[in-house]
């Protein structure tokens, strides 16, 4: 018996001893997850990574509409870039209030947020996440890496353009950080990935860095209107430069209005055209209905392919409630959140009965005044963005959950208004051109009689005209700050967390660096 068992034992013994090979501990993902060394030998992969950088503005994770989120500190839908940016730029102003009770959401309109506010925190994380993504792209696409991976010729050229676009997107997010937070941490592709505490920059330095980046890539970008739809081109760079210069006084203390004239001129002369009907800019087919000729840089959404619970899904659904019929907006339901203040209604001459066709308030069943900020029917609703095409047909998503409507991040009308403002603020330029550009917008807005004269073109007119033309397009907070009526000036319902509204302190012009970022110190 023993003789039979013995060989088996010996086999077992040797097996166990052999079993101890430590190479078994060197494991890598075996599913679709890829390590960069394998992934980026394929030139196509760079474009898919670039798509992530753009998608970073539109969706919240890798499983659209939800699942495998980019950020985990907040509910995925809330953590989406455009949704947060929109909330911070609009809810803090006279243009929008929200009736929900999610966390500290009411503090945004009340201008009584603290450094623990999760929306501010997540915006901060989202901006720098976008920067970190871009840095990683630039690391992977470094000349050394491309060379080592044997990428040459047309592939190499394409990837060089991608790199310029990546740098544009990084500059865009840093611009948002500059505008919202002032002195965010500063990281580039030269920093490592880890848990270190990046150094904070200051506003002036960040301003010049963004400026120099944009100037550097200006000529590496695809010429204006020549790139694929959805991707940034030279005009997007000019737009961002114009915005940077327009607000330069706020950011750095020294005005740069002449540069605004310079760059808005380039845009205006680049061949873009205003779409005939203002409403078309905000419809499901705004990538094809003519609006695409006015839009310089969109954030593209698609009911089937680019979905999230942020972005346009939020902007459209949250604005619907009360007696509004979701079907008319091409969606399946309203989330009954967003309305506007009575003060903003009055920015339109005649209020909700304005002859200005850009006025799209929904008043049935709504009161103008906001007695209860939680009640959707308090305050007029805004029927601007819709998921229907020019013929009223719902977008591609049959369930009506996710819209096709693209968000017009930069559009020609804004360039007109910036040009006019720079002229009025003494940046030079041509007053005649300014007036005629404004009147192009007014002609579109009014059936007749909307035009203004040069004498009408002043700052008071401009801040209101920017409101009328660009409301709910995520410009308002920046504009109000530039016109000094955001915090210690300017009163609208529920500002300062009181029904009639009150002024707040000027430090509110910047959002606080989140408390959470102060606690984690380098490891």
């Amino acid at each position, binding site marked *: *018996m023993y003789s039979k*068992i013995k060989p088996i034992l010996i086999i077992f013994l040797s*097996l*166990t*001893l052999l079993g*101890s090979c*430590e190479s*078994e*501990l060197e*494991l*890598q*993902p075996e*599913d679709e997850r890829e390590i960069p060394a394998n*992934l980026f030998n394929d030139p196509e992969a760079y474009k*898919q*990574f670039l*798509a*992530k950088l753009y*998608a970073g503005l539109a*969706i919240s994770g*890798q499983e*659209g509409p939800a699942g*495998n989120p*980019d950020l*985990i*500190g907040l*509910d995925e839908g809330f953590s989406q870039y455009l949704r947060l940016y929109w909330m911070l730029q609009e809810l803090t102003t006279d243009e929008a209030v929200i009736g*929900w*009770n*999610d966390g500290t959401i009411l503090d945004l309109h009340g201008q009584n947020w603290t450094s623990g506010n*999760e929306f501010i925190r997540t915006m901060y994380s989202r901006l720098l*996440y976008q920067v970190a993504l871009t840095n990683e792209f630039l690391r992977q696409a470094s000349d050394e890496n491309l060379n080592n991976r044997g990428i040459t010729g047309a592939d190499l050229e394409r990837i060089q353009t991608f790199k310029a676009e990546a740098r544009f997107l990084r500059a865009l997010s840093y611009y948002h950080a500059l505008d919202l937070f002032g002195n965010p941490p500063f*990281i580039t592709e030269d920093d490592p*990935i*880890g*848990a270190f505490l*990046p150094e904070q920059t200051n506003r002036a330095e960040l301003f010049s860095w963004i400026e120099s980046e944009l100037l550097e890539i200006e000529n590496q970008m695809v010429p204006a209107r020549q790139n694929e*739809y959805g*991707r940034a081109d030279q005009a997007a760079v000019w737009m961002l430069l114009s915005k940077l210069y327009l607000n330069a006084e706020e950011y750095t203390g020294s005005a740069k209005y002449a540069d605004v004239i310079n760059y808005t001129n380039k845009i205006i002369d680049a061949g873009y055209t205003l779409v005939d009907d203002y409403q078309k800019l905000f419809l499901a087919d705004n990538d094809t209905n003519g609006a695409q000729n006015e839009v310089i840089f969109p954030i593209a959404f698609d009911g*089937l*392919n*680019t*979905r999230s619970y942020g972005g346009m899904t939020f902007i459209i659904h949250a604005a619907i409630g009360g007696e509004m019929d979701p079907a008319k907006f091409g969606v*399946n*339901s*309203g*989330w*009954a959140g967003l309305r506007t203040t009575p003060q903003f209604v009055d920015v339109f001459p005649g209020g909700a009965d304005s002859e200005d066709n850009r006025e799209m308030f929904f008043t049935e069943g709504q009161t103008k005044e906001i007695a209860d900020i*939680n*009640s*959707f029917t308090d305050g007029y609703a805004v029927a601007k963005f819709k998921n229907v095409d020019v013929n009223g047909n719902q977008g591609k*998503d049959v369930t009506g*959950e*996710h819209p096709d409507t693209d968000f017009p991040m930069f559009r020609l009308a804004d360039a007109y208004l910036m040009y006019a403002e720079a002229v009025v603020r003494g940046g030079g330029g041509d007053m005649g051109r300014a007036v005629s550009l404004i009147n192009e917008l007014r002609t579109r807005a009014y059936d007749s009689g909307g035009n203004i004269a040069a004498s009408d073109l002043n700052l008071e007119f401009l801040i209101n005209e920017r409101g009328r033309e660009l409301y709910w397009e995520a410009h308002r907070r920046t504009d109000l700050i530039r016109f000094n009526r955001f915090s210690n000036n300017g009163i609208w319902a529920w500002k300062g967390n009181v029904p009639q509204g009150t002024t707040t302190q000027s430090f509110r012009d910047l959002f606080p660096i989140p*408390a959470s970022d*102060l*606690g*984690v*110190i*380098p490891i």
Partner: protein
Amino acid sequence: MRTLFKSTLLLLFMMPMSFFAQNTLSGMVIEQDTGLPIPGVNVLIKGTNQGTVTDFDGNYALEGVKMNDVIVFSYVGFASQEETYTGQEVINVELAPGALLEEVVLIGYGTTRRQDATGAVQQISTEEFNRGAIVSPEQLIAGKSAGVRITSANGAPGGGAEIRIRGGSSLSANNSPLIVVDGIPLDQRGVQGVRNQLNAINPNEIEDFVVLKDASATAIYGSRASNGVILITTKKGKKDAPLNFEYDLKASVGTVTDYVDVLDANQFRNLIESTPGTDPDLLGNADTDWQKEIYQTSVGAIHNLTVSQGFENFYYRVNYNNTAQTGVLKTDLYERNALNIALNADLLDNTLKLTLTSKGSFDDNKFADEGAIGAAVNFDPTQPVYDPNSQYNGYYEWTDANGVALQQATRNPVALLMQRDPDARTKRNITNFNVDYRIPFVENLRFNMNAGFDYAENEGRNFRPVSSAVVLQDIPNEEEYSGINRNTLLDFYFNYKPYLEAYNTNIDLTAGHSFQEFFIQSERMFTQDNQWRTAPLSRERNALESYFARASFDIDDRFLLSASYRTDGSSRFSEDNRWSHFPAVSAGWKLNNESFMEGSVFSELKLRAGYGITGNYEIGNNYGYIGFYSRSVGGASYQFGDRFYQTFRPEEYDRDLRWEELETYNVGIDYGFFNDRLTGSIDAYHRTTDGLLAVVPVPAGANLSDQLLTNVGETVSRGIEIALNGEVVQSQNFNWNFNYNITFQDLEITRLSLGDNPNFFIPQGGISGGVGNTIQLWKTGIDPTTFFVYRQVYDENNNPIEGAYVDVNGDNEITEADRQPYKKASPDYFMGFTNNLTYKNLDLSFTFRGSFGGYMYNNTQSSIGFVGAGTITPQPYYSNFNANVLETNFQRNQFFSDYYVRSADFVRLDNISLGYLVPGEDVNFRASLTATNVFLITNYEGLDPEIAGGIDNNFYPRPRTFVLGFNLSF
């Protein structure tokens, strides 16, 4: 006592046999040391099943004895003695104290005698288990062990439980103990597709649990030992045992004991009508108690059929189990078909012992939609369950004018349950082959090897027809998923136990190696937007390689010394951090063996002290140190031109990720008084978790996400555990014993970031109400389950004033700065109290459990206990309120008020069981009646004060069950 009871039964069973026997042998068995008679000693003719036990005076009479028969006298705590029958009429025996098998306690990679254990180790055996229709093994030992808290997740059939030994050690990493079943360490992450991974082990087949609590006991398991270790041993056949059949049936019925207190139809109507701005026309005319509509009386049956037999060299035990249990929530079902096999062969003169254990099971589930629980609490009670005009298969739903369901409205809870067809099956096999070989030529040298696997394959499907209001597409909501969990093990060790006579010292040396690999694969397909979609295949693999050693010394039966060492290498860490070392030492002093203790009341007195370092391997991530890219799926592509591109995303990673390390100090006393009539132990510990793994906000921009799993911080926990066992009455007909244990625990975060901002905290504990709201926090200096609330202000009648909170920082504003840490979910102390009483053939046992000092956030009240909750709705419908709204009259949400944080102290009669044994000649028959979750004493207003995590929301109620049991063995 137990043995006495068993022996008495055996005696009664044997008695009739004796009438037919010829040769009679009689005698008396006494204790060698004291000369006192020993009742209940087994007296057996070797190699047969023929035997008897001594009576209360130590006398026995054995009939049918043949010449040269060897008579074996055995009793717990004494060395067995053999006498050969050579025709004497009387054989008197003096039994000497000694170690018997029952005294041996399994510890990691070896065994020790209970009285020689130097760590905090507790064995819980069959006789001490909880009774009732127990489906999940861990319920057998709930309330039985100090320092061990077992909280069943909810009332779902076959549901799992949160097991915490000494409260767990980590924040973000796993806090569940390592569970080792017949030598195979299970995957601490569980197995996909089942409600509870331990259900693969049939509770009927468990011989004992050994709980290793402190580091000196667990450190031999190294990187998986920080949360304690539970060793489960299943029943095996017995040597030289006749063929035995056993059939056991437990039939149960269960009912919901309480419902969430919501408004009835009249109250609801009144509230809606009296609230300005509402439209009472939306209300219906029905009077529906939605909770009664979704719950039912559950029924269940557990069948166990066991065959066992033993020969000289080979013995086996085979068990077939069928368990079927419906839930108290309609459509919920759990079913198990399992086959347990244990084969033992003792070869080569008992020097080679081979053991094969195999547990195969089909675990079938119908997972009811537990969302119905919340929907039933929320749904308007004035609406009917059925509506003849409904296009949703006759179920009432909130609809628009066209009869199309409102998207944002609450769904009909009954329809949620009924319009769903969920099916899931997990096939699982846990098999281990153990070789234990006494190596010839070297005395006391043993080789032991385990080769085992735990393989599970699951497959499931969910289906909702298009007639369900949940379905938003033209085809049914369908989902098909499948997966594999595989865990393979190969370990071996050498054990050498020399005896140094010169020093009267027993030495026990062990050294070995282990390799274990875990593989998980999951696939899923589902319908979305009118088409089938495939989720990306997920494959996870990780491996652990270990070397371990232990040396134990027993000097003069007075001093005990033990040291162990383990080094673990894990695929989860980069090469620089891959290997880690886990040492432990412990010592014991058996005072009762000292001469100065002679004649004292102590029958046992041992002091123990231990120190050790353990790790936590379950960091939640297999490739956390590698940066990789994941591909987007579904609607997560981006448009360039006319094409949509799926994207690649780089994932966050921490190249420096390393283990959590837990440093434990433990001191203990094992004591026994009055001849061990009163025994027990006291342990005190102090533990520090360093390199605490937590998902923390990473400095923005430094990594590729906003939060990162990384090593940051430290926790300290302290505790005292007291166990007391008493044999209150010991007599021939009536016996009574009890087991009482109490645990005091305290856990505190002592550092949470490497910076020194004292105000830094991480919000925890998501609640229902709004989005992204949390009610707890992690912060330095407090317990990690601490609530984070505003201090409510009350009026003179002690009613809360809406929106009035204490302005803690005195800035005349209520801001986040006024939110304060307040109370905590984990209890300060908890206890278990079990009594077993037997009178002749009747037995009664019951177990109380109690928990004190813990608090609960009543999220059921806070989320729908205000007027706005049911009236401010995005679409034209209303939803029901928690009846608490009538007390507070809150108009708006007060989610963060400490009003909702309530004491969760409770005492629960967990189970009470009455049994009667009808002994027969060839057949033993036992019947029992058990009630579980019998009653609850608590001031907590919600459904149940015992909810893991401390947030009470839409809790699946634990039913009260009555179990009728039959057991037949022949």
